Every structure is written in structure tokens, then in C-alpha cells.
């Protein structure tokens, strides 16, 4: 079990000034922290740290109390505040106090030789070049106290090629008009997606961000500043505890907000929003990996437009050398799924140049040829991919496609060999096995395979073909009456199947149900008016009904369409002999071929 529930990973508390709704009542934070992950972040956001220090101290005190009572929890405490000119000494005093508050946790950590459960990671805000200089000086002081700060800047200051690590910062954040909260949440989302993208255990699921915003200025709280907020008053009294245990009120209501279309849009926008920050912090590669995974996630949800957007961005990125090839493979798969074979081939050919040893690329290029019905080229590529060593996740698909190619090329023995090595049982597999067996003149075995295909739940689009081949096998076995039912089902599924009408006509003919047979052949002729065989078939049925004049006419039409139809010519000859006999006329003279 890797994901246990809707716990919070981050709590953002926007501290109130005098005009706001007031400070968070004592005890409320302790109750919120009960829902926070074993490693959580507590952001205390202040517009003026000196003004709000009293509130912050109370909250830090509650956080320390929480850690003392819950021995497996760890907190990153993140005061977020501007760095104003002339306040350096006061800030230093404040951070001395914050550091001292964690003294017992540091001692405990040292004794256990692990990281402290109380880690202070301030976020210093700067909006001008002067404030950036000031922030860097404060950062130096903090580092000397073993506190690692981040710097949050608006686009205005000139950072002159700054890099977070180079400046000894945890991270540089970029604030836009959304202010510090937006910047913090964007970076938090980036961190979550990075963690998900690099995790070897557990997949990604569409969940809302595991954060809680407590806005003491506006008196509201919610999962995210972009989603609905509820009144902060729900956190007071005993209602929170009740809510935490599963009622629909208060915090539980907030926590249960699932991800919706707004979250998906937010994820889509993330790569763009994080681009500058990633550059400053030398995290371009991680940003590329996140976007790649977002593409795959969209692909898994069959959200092809989103997938294309992300994968194309990764494929065109220079920062993710290894990921580009993979992105191009998935882009190729996406185009294949959409039927854009040209685009698919182009993407896969580019992937091939980046990943020349990739069997997966060759396999998908084979799929392109397959979709364009060049079964010889497709089977060549499939065989090459197999020799290169395709992964287990594609092995069965590759063998299935290769088998189908052989069926299409009427290489039934080869088809049967390849299809026999496919492990995953499916209706498609058994259908093509059936066709191959039928082609090899083994109708009983073929029928068994086709029945298996039906039992495995064939797709509606394949039903007509399966029923048709079942009818065909029964016809081959001489069971013409039994063949009628599957052929009628085939025609029910696809009334425009010429082959089914033709075969139905044949079976009816063999059952001497000539009028029905003529009806079937006439339907076949509606779909293929130039079919000489079906004209002749109508003729044969008319002949057996005793209408020799009409039969002669139909045979002649057939021969006009195809003069090489030998059996029609012989039948016509017999019919006309019979007609002449009835009229008592002599047969026409046959001088045979001319002699030289």
C-alpha cells in the first residue's frame, strides 16, 4: 500500500493583519496537523513578519506541541515573508527564536543519527533589486544557522543569471500576479509531479493537490486557491474533530474534493508556468520528465489532445535527451491510434534516429505499414523487432500482428505458428487462428477457434467476420443447413457483406431452396453488380427451377462479364442443348479449331 488516503502534505496559513478575520484560534492548527502526512510542510505566510510575529509564534508553538505528541511526524516549517530594508536585526532575532524552538528535536535527531523532525526552511520575498540584495544577506545569516532559505521574486528584479544552488538557496520561486501563494502552490505541484514521475512504486491517479489553504484574511479555507473555499468558522469548536472522523462537514468536506477538469487544466499549464523557475534552479530535465509523464497520463486516459500537446513539447525539447526518443514513440502511438499514419511514421522515424536500438520503435513502424495494409513490409519490421528483443509488454501484440500479416498474405502455416506463441488469449487471436485453420482446410478446428473467439467477447465490429467464417467452415463441412444461422447473423451485423450474401446463396442452392438462393445472389449483385459468378449462380438456380430461358439469359450475362468462366459456359451449353431439344432443333455444328 503506497497511498493511504486524502492526507494533507502542505498547509498554507495566510496570517491576518488587523483588518482581516483574525488569527487562527489556539488548538485549531494542532487538529489540522492530525491530518497532515508524516512528512508535511507548514507555510506561514505573512505580509509583515514583525507585525505578525505574535501569531506566528503561537502557531510554531502549536506545531512543536504536535511533534512532541506524535513521534513519527516531521514538519518543514516555512515562514514566508518579505525582506524589507532596515529590519535585518529583527529578522535575525526572530530566526534565533525559531531555531531554539527546535532544539529538542535537533538533539533527538543527533542521538538517532537522522534528520531533525523540525526543519526551518524560510521563503524570503523580494520585489526589487535592493530587496534581492537584502534577501541574499539574510540568506547568508540563515545558512550560518544551518537554515536553508528559498527566494521568491517577482519578475521585476534583475537576477543576472542567478541559480538557486549557486546562491546557496533551496529554490528560487517566481511570483506573478497570483502572489506568493500561487507561486508556492505551483512549485508544490511541480514537486509532487516530480516525485510521481520518478517513483518506481505506484501509478499516478487524478487527485487534487494534497494541500490546505487557510486564509485568515478572508476567513476561508480550501484545497486550493483555484477551487471552492468554505468558511473558516467550520474549523472551530468540536466540529473539526467530528469532520476528521468522516462526517461531511468541515475539513473532511475540503479534503474529499477530488480532482476535476480545473485540476487537469492546472497540470496542463504547469510546464509553462514552471519553465522559468526550472531554468533558475537547473531543473529543466526534471520539468521535461514531468511533462513527459503528463503526456503518458493523458494517453492512458485516452485524452489524445492533451497527450499530444505534452509529448510534442517534450519531443521538441533540447533539455531531455533520453526522454525525447521515448516521447516520440508515444507520439507515434498516439497518431497511430488516431489513424494519422503519415504523422505516426514521421514521429517514429525521428525516434528511430534517437533510439537506433529500440525494438519498440521498429514494432510501431511495423504497425504503420500494417495500417496501410502493406503486410509484407509490416511482417519484415515485426520480425526485425522480435530479433532485436521486444519487451514483454509488447511481445504478445507483436506476435498477434505478425500472425495477422501472415493470414492476410494467406501464409496460413506461418500464421498458425506465430499465433500459437501468443500467450494472452483474446477474441482477435482466436478469430485469426480460425481463419488460418480454415485456410489450411481444417474447418472443424477453425470452427472451434471461432467459437472461442465468440466466447471471449468479440468486439461488435468483428462479429460479422466471425459469423461469416463460422458459416464458411460449416459449408466446407457440408453442413449447409447449420451454416444458415451464422450467415444470417453475419448479415444482421453487416448487411453490406457481399461475401456473406454470396455464401448464403450457395448454401441455399445446395439445400435446393432456389428462390431464397436467388434472393441472396440478387443481394450480392446489388453490392457487386459486376460479379460474373453471381450472375451465373442466379442462372443455375433458375435452371434448377426449370426456367431454362431465364437461366440461359443469366449465364450469357455472366459470360459477357467474364468470358473465362468455364463452368458457366458449360452450364449454358447444357441449358441451350436442352432448350433446342425441347424445340426439336439440331445442335450447332462444331468444326473445332482451325488446322494450319
Amino acid at each position: 500500500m503506497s497511498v493511504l488516503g486524502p492526507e494533507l502534505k502542505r498547509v498554507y496559513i495566510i496570517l491576518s493583519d488587523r483588518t482581516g478575520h483574525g488569527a487562527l484560534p489556539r488548538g485549531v492548527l494542532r487538529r489540522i496537523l492530525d491530518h497532515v502526512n508524516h512528512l508535511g510542510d507548514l507555510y506561514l505566510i505573512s505580509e509583515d513578519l514583525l507585525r505578525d510575529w505574535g501569531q506566528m509564534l503561537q502557531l510554531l508553538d502549536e506545531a512543536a506541541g504536535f511533534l512532541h505528541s506524535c513521534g513519527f511526524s516531521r514538519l518543514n516549517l516555512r515562514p514566508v515573508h518579505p525582506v524589507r530594508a532596515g529590519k535585518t536585526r529583527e529578522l535575525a532575532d526572530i530566526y534565533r527564536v525559531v531555531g531554539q524552538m527546535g532544539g529538542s528535536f535537533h538533539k533527538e535527531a543527533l542521538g538517532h543519527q537522522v534528520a531533525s523532525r523540525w526543519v526551518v526552511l524560510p521563503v524570503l520575498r523580494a520585489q526589487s533589486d535592493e530587496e534581492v540584495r537584502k534577501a541574499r544577506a539574510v540568506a547568508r545569516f540563515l545558512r550560518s544557522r544551518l537554515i536553508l532559505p528559498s527566494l521568491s521574486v517577482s519578475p521585476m528584479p534583475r537576477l543576472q543569471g542567478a541559480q538557486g544552488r549557486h546562491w546557496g538557496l533551496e529554490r528560487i520561486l517566481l511570483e506573478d500576479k497570483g502572489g506568493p501563494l500561487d507561486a508556492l502552490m505551483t512549485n508544490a505541484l511541480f514537486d509532487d509531479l516530480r516525485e510521481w514521475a520518478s517513483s518506481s512504486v505506484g501509478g499516478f491517479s487524478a487527485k487534487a493537490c494534497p494541500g490546505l489553504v487557510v486564509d485568515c484574511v478572508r476567513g476561508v479555507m480550501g484545497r486550493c486557491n483555484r477551487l471552492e473555499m468554505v468558511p473558516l468558522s467550520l474549523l472551530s469548536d468540536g466540529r473539526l474533530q467530528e469532520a476528521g472522523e468522516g462526517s461531511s462537514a468541515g475539513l473532511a468536506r475540503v479534503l474529499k474534493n477530488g480532482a476535476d477538469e480545473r485540476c487537469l487544466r492546472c497540470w496542463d499549464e504547469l510546464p509553462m508556468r514552471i519553465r522559468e523557475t526550472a531554468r533558475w534552479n537547473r531543473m529543466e530535465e526534471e520539468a521535461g520528465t514531468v511533462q513527459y509523464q503528463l503526456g503518458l497520463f493523458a494517453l492512458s486516459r485516452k485524452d489524445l489532445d492533451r497527450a499530444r500537446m505534452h509529448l510534442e513539447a517534450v519531443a521538441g525539447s533540447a533539455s531531455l535527451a533520453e526522454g525525447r526518443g521515448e516521447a516520440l514513440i508515444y507520439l507515434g502511438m498516439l497518431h497511430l491510434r488516431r489513424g494519422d499514419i503519415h504523422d505516426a511514421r514521421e514521429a517514429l522515424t525521428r525516434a528511430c534516429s534517437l533510439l537506433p536500438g529500440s525494438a519498440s520503435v521498429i514494432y510501431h513502424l511495423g504497425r504503420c505499414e500494417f495500417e496501410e495494409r502493406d503486410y509484407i513490409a509490416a511482417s519484415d519490421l515485426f520480425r526485425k523487432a522480435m530479433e532485436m528483443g521486444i519487451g514483454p509488454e509488447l511481445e504478445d501484440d507483436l506476435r498477434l500482428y505478425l500472425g495477422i500479416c501472415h493470414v492476410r498474405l494467406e501464409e496460413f502455416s506461418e500464421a498458425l505458428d506465430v499465433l500459437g506463441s501468443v500467450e494472452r488469449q483474446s477474441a482477435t487471436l482466436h478469430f485469426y487462428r480460425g481463419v488460418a485453420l480454415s485456410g489450411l482446410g481444417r474447418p472443424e478446428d477453425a470452427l472451434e477457434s471461432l467459437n472461442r473467439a465468440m466466447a471471449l467477447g468479440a468486439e461488435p465490429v468483428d462479429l460479422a467476420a466471425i459469423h461469416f467464417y463460422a458459416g464458411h467452415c460449416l459449408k466446407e463441412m457440408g453442413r449447409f443447413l447449420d451454416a444458415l444461422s451464422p450467415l444470417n447473423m453475419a448479415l444482421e451485423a453487416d448487411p453490406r457483406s457481399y461475401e456473406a450474401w454470396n455464401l448464403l446463396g450457395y448454401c441455399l442452392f445446395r439445400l435446393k431452396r432456389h428462390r431464397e438462393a436467388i434472393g441472396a445472389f440478387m443481394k450480392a449483385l446489388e453490392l457487386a453488380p459486376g460479379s460474373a459468378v453471381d450472375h451465373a449462380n442466379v442462372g443455375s438456380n433458375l435452371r434448377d427451377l426449370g426456367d431454362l430461358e431465364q437461366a440461359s439469359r443469366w449465364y450469357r450475362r455472366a459470360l459477357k462479364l467474364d468470358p473465362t468462366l468455364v463452368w458457366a459456359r458449360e452450364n449454358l451449353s447444357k441449358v441451350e442443348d436442352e432448350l433446342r431439344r425441347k424445340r426439336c432443333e439440331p445442335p450447332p455444328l462444331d468444326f473445332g479449331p482451325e488446322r494450319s
Partner: protein
Amino acid sequence: MNVLLMEVNPYVPCSLPISIGYLAAVLQARGHRVLTLNVGEGTRLSPCSFRGILSDTKPALVGFAAYQRNMLIIRGLMRAVKEFDPSIRVILGGPQATFMPSEAMADLLDVDYICRGEGEVVIQKVVEAMDSGEKGLPVAGTTTRLSPSQWAEGAAVDAPEALDLYPSPFLSGVLELEGLGEAIMLTSRGCPYRCVFCYTPMAFGHRVRYHSVGRVLEEMEWLYRRGIQRFWLADPSFSFARERSEEILRGVLKKGIRAGIWLETRADLVDEDLVRLMAMAGVQTLALGLESASERVLDGLGKGISPRRVRQAVELARGQGIDVELFSQYGLPGERYEDALQTLEFVKGCVAIRGNTNAQQMRLYFGTPIHDRFEAFGIRPLDRQRPSYISIGVRYETRWMTSQEIHRIRDLWREASLDGGRRMVS
């Protein structure tokens, strides 16, 4: 009985909890209901949700895999268990527990049993004892708490020679494989060598026990067919039994298992033929223990392999296209600052420094010869006092290097690292 088994690695991402998987498979085969809880850096687990898990699963016994690195956090989790329901029994297992001093019971008041023997055997005995009303304490293979201030040692337990007697944690379905690309496997247990810093030889009585080749291949094939693309064979010395390891590698080839393999062995247990076979079978990474590039330092470690032999093995492996990871350490007995630099230079000259090639300071764990006789090895602990369940670990300097020098070496390794010094194996 309901049992909750927890693997807790709070500072790194989750990996497959193979050890508690074995315990869960054994208990499940005997009809017990077992939940395994794998807590890593990114796992969501709050105080509230932990109570929810305890409430849902109603365990009579909760087990923790203890390592030096997670003791602080599992101490907190054990407290939470007892606060939720004091009648729940708590057992501490894993490498930290095997040789932990019994006096640790005084510091770990929430622990009812410390596991001293093979986990699969001991946990069954604990469950049987609990089923019979905990009569006849202490339980064999454990240190058993009799009262808040009293505990007693149970008799030693034997572990079976054939590991196949344990049901497979994979085939029995106790491990969650959803979304997993890599599987950790233990095809053998134990090590016959006598490296002074290592826990394994002592814990397994200097012998090696094996799963049959058939069982190993059955598991690998089963996992491969379920999408596992990489196997992490965590045996201490995979090629110790040469014929068996060849049989496994040939079996991998014969069964068409085309996954990547990571494995660890000794440099003196590989030759050209074996390395070629490894490459053919899909071994992508070979991990070798170097420890130090100084012959003099190595002589004091009981390892019995020369740096020259290690270099030969590296060349053999790389000649077959296999990546090599070199395990090395600093702060070793007899190691001077210059020796440590020599190791860094040696490794730089052999392989890229990333992943497990990032060296770490030697750790002194309970049960290792160097921990038991630290003074004789020139180790000077930095702390006069530490919790009784915590070993010396990295809090020491040596007769040959001050802690400042050790830290300087650490920083030099970090500077030379291509990935910031993050190791997978501790």
C-alpha cells in the same frame, strides 16, 4: 489473527518490501490475515489515517522492520499503536533488532518482542504464543517483555536449510505489484566471509542458504510476465555457488526473460565466462565491494580481495557492456586521510561516481565484529551516551582520522559525484 507488518523508510522513496513480504506469506499460509504497510518518503500517512488503519485492520500484532535509520520514526509509530490500543502486541525485527542489546527494552517501552532469529520462524512462534494466551514466555527466538521493567531471552531457533520451505511472497500475492517496474528478490541468504564491518555473516551464522533454481526462475518468469522489467537480486554474493548462479542465468535466457538485472557479488567470484553469461542473461549492473583501495586498510577488514582483483573484475564486466557499481567506504580502521583519497582516486579511475558508487562513511551496526570490539579497531565514539537501541553508526572518529577529516572526505566524494551522492543501498 490479524497482523500488521510495517516497512518504514521515511527518508527515501518506497521500494518493494521483500523481507516483510516473506513474513506475510508465511503467516498467510497459516490462515492469518496480514496487511503489509510500506511507508516511504512519499507515502501518505497522517496520525489520523494511521489510527484509521489500526481501526480497520484491528491487528493483534504489529511488526516493524527496524534499521538504524528508521528507529526514531518507528519509535513514534509504536507509541501511536499503543496509544490506540495498549493490548496490541508489538514486535521489532530486522537487522537493527537481531543484535540489539536487551537493555533497549528499557528505552523502548512499547516493544513486546525483539526478534533475534530468522523472522519467518520467530513470527510464527510469537503468533502461536499469542494464540495460546502467551503462556510459556519467553517466546523462542525473541527477547520477550514480561512486565514494564522485566524481560527474558527465549531459546534460540533454527532456520530451515532450504529456503523453498517459505512460500513465495510474489506467487502468494501478498505484495502489491501494481505499477511496479522493478522487483527485489533474495535468491539466497547469508555470507560465509568475515568482513569486520558487515552484519550478514554473523546474522546468518557464516553460512549460505538457497532457494532452488526452479523456484527462482518460476518467480522471475511470473514477475516478468506481469510487467517487471528489472530484477534487483539482493543476494550478498550472487555467484558464491558458481554452478547454481550459471544455472539461474541460463534459465533466464532459456525462458526468454528479457529484463534488466542488478546483482552483487565479489570480485574474486567472477571470471570472463561468467561475466559473458551475465551479459547475455541481461545483467545491466554488477555491484562489487571494493571498500578501500589501500591494501593495508583492506588487510584489516577481513575482506580478502585486492584492489587489483577488483579492477580486473571491473574491466571484465565493462568489456561485456555491463555497468559496474563499486561499494566503498571511508572512516575505516587503519585508514588515513591519504588512504581515503587514494580510494576516491581509484574509483574515479574505474567507474563513474553515481548511485551506489557514491561512497559512505562506514557504519558500525550491532552484531558486527567492529562494533563489538570497536576500541580494538581504533574506533572512538563521539557520543558518551546514545539511546540503547542505537549503535555507534557514523558517530565516531578513528585513531587515524578526526571527524573533521572524515567530513572532508565525505564532501570530496559529494563533489566528485555525478548525482549529488544519493545511494540506493545502505
